[in-house]
């Protein structure tokens, strides 16, 4: 078990190194002259001389390997450079902006998990019933709706029509609700579909007959017998959607004007702010890899056969 964990850890570390190369190359290989972007902020109208001066200053004409080495060294030392657009240091900005994104993803994950587990359990409790069929239909509709559309619907309903929830901003729990729903509904619907199928298959296993013979109620069997068996499926599905929430945040954060890492990234992408882009992309990849690593660990620990092999 420990050996397996160790192997997965090494794998994750290697992925991060590869990701760093990609993050750098992807941004560095963008078309367009970065020097122009920088020069634009020194003067309202940019002369060619200023552009050359900027290229010199930032070492933009150096070979790409030299630039990667310089960037990696700075990054490892914790120096993420300064935003080309706003001039603020990227490291502290990312750190400050991590909080809203963290809240968004966590609240979204809570919504996704609540919907995913709640609906699938309700459906499995009364298979083929009204709730089950309704939830299945909803899950299908929910899963096929783009997130920005869900966000627009939510904003329209709760902000414009009912005027009960804020439509933008990161201003305490009431402002978290709509973004959390917008980011969590689709993964929730998808998780509920996967879980529902897994629960159905678990509920037709012989151990369920045994539990019935022992006089257990259907609800209790669902929770105590079926759920532990579908947990790896749920965790895997949840893990995937959790990791992809970073991607969804890129859509959701600007809609709700959240000052998070994702909107920082979007803004930076528009202005080719490559210092910000490289660092935030690396942060996203690290988050992605970390989530996958943690999911692997959890699946390892919740499956007794993996956790405690018979020979041990």
């Amino acid at each position, binding site marked *: 078990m420990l050996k397996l964990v160790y192997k997965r850890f090494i794998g994750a570390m290697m992925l991060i190194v590869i990701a760093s190369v990609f993050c750098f190359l992807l941004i560095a290989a963008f078309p367009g002259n970065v020097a122009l972007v920088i020069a634009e902020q020194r003067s309202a109208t940019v002369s060619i001389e200023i552009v050359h001066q900027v290229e010199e200053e930032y070492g933009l004409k150096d070979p790409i390997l030299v630039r990667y080495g310089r960037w990696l060294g700075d990054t490892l030392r914790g120096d993420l450079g300064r935003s080309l657009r706003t001039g603020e240091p990227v490291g502290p900005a990312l750190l400050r902006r991590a909080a809203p994104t963290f809240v968004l993803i966590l609240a979204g994950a809570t919504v996704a998990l609540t919907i995913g587990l709640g609906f699938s359990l309700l459906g499995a409790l009364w298979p083929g019933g009204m709730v089950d069929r309704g939830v299945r239909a909803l899950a299908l509709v929910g899963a096929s709706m783009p997130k920005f559309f869900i966000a627009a619907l939510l904003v329209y309903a709760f902000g414009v029509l009912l005027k009960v929830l804020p439509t933008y901003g990161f201003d305490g729990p009431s402002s978290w609700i709509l973004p959390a729903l917008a980011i969590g509904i689709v993964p929730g619907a998808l998780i509920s579909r996967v879980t529902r199928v897994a629960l159905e298959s678990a*509920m*037709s*296993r*012989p*151990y369920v*007959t*045994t*539990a*019935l*013979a*022992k*006089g*257990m109620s259907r609800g209790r069997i669902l929770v*105590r*017998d079926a759920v*532990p*068996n579908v*947990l790896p499926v749920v965790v895997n599905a949840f893990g995937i959607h959790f990791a992809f929430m970073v991607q969804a945040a890129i859509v959701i954060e600007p809609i709700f004007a959240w000052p998070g890492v994702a909107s920082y990234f979007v803004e930076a992408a528009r202005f080719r702010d490559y210092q910000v882009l490289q660092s935030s992309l690396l942060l996203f990849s690290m988050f992605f890899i970390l989530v996958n690593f943690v999911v692997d660990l959890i699946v390892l620990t*919740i*499956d*007794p*056969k993996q956790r*405690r092999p*018979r020979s041990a």
Partner: protein
Amino acid sequence: MSSSEALLDVSNLDVTLHTERATVRASRAVTYSVAAGRTLAIVGESGSGKTILNLAPLGLLPPGVTADITGEVRFDGKLVLGDGVNQIASHRGKDIGVIFQDPLSALNPARRIGSQIMEVAEQHLGMTARAASAHAAELLKMVGIPDPVARLSQYPHELSGGMRQRVVIAAAIAAEPKLLIADEPTTALDVTVQAQIISLLRQLQKRIGMAIVLISHDIGVVAGMADAIAVMYAGAIVEIGSADDVLVQPSHPYTRGLLASVPRLDTPLGAPFRGLPGLPPDLSRPLKGCAFEERCSVALEACGSARPPLQPVAGTHAAACFANVRAALAATR
């Protein structure tokens, strides 16, 4: 054979199963009873309806299958099925324990053994988790599992097949049921383990005083344990009587065939019946005559057109065979 002291009294039980594809008459007009502390073995080939007969009234059918059940079942002197009543399910786990064929699939792989036994005691005996845990350890000890406390926190995959079946038994008897239904409890096990399990069941029966309905395709397995034997073929009882009567003086050609096919030591493990040619009839189609006619070596002309009823041979011993009844009548004359 029905008597006032019977713990379980089944009469005229008909079970018709409905699946999405077909409707099967799994048992017809089945009547039997078991007294407290005694063992009735129900023997028959796979598909003879012996398992359905017992599990359908308990509501333990596979998912997607529904059943029409008619007839009467009395349990412990009370009408629990028939006349608009269907309460057997409420006795599950408490008064009626069930042991299944495959101990590996019958146990939940994701749960510890302890909790799978404990929940029965918590549910039916109202025990606290702590008391139930002690009780479970005791049960494990009772079913012959060494180091029971340590076992409680283990998972099914960490145990051998025989051990698992002992765990299943422990869970089935955790609430000290009055009746234990054992559905092929040894089929999935090694021959040596089979004998151990049978002997364990006998010990437990003595200790708890429960009645056992032992369902098996192997007349050899039940021979040493049953007080009475019912032989089922194609959904109906073809012979019933005390173990001595049925084993020593089998009166139905099918019973005779079963006895002749008892595997010997050199037969491969888990092999199906030997010595009985042919296959049992398709229960989803209506039958005119005796269901066994096609495979019967002593079939008469009448066997093809009418169904032989269950008729007494001697005392409580009865068989459903025209040929045999004639032979018996001839013998008494």
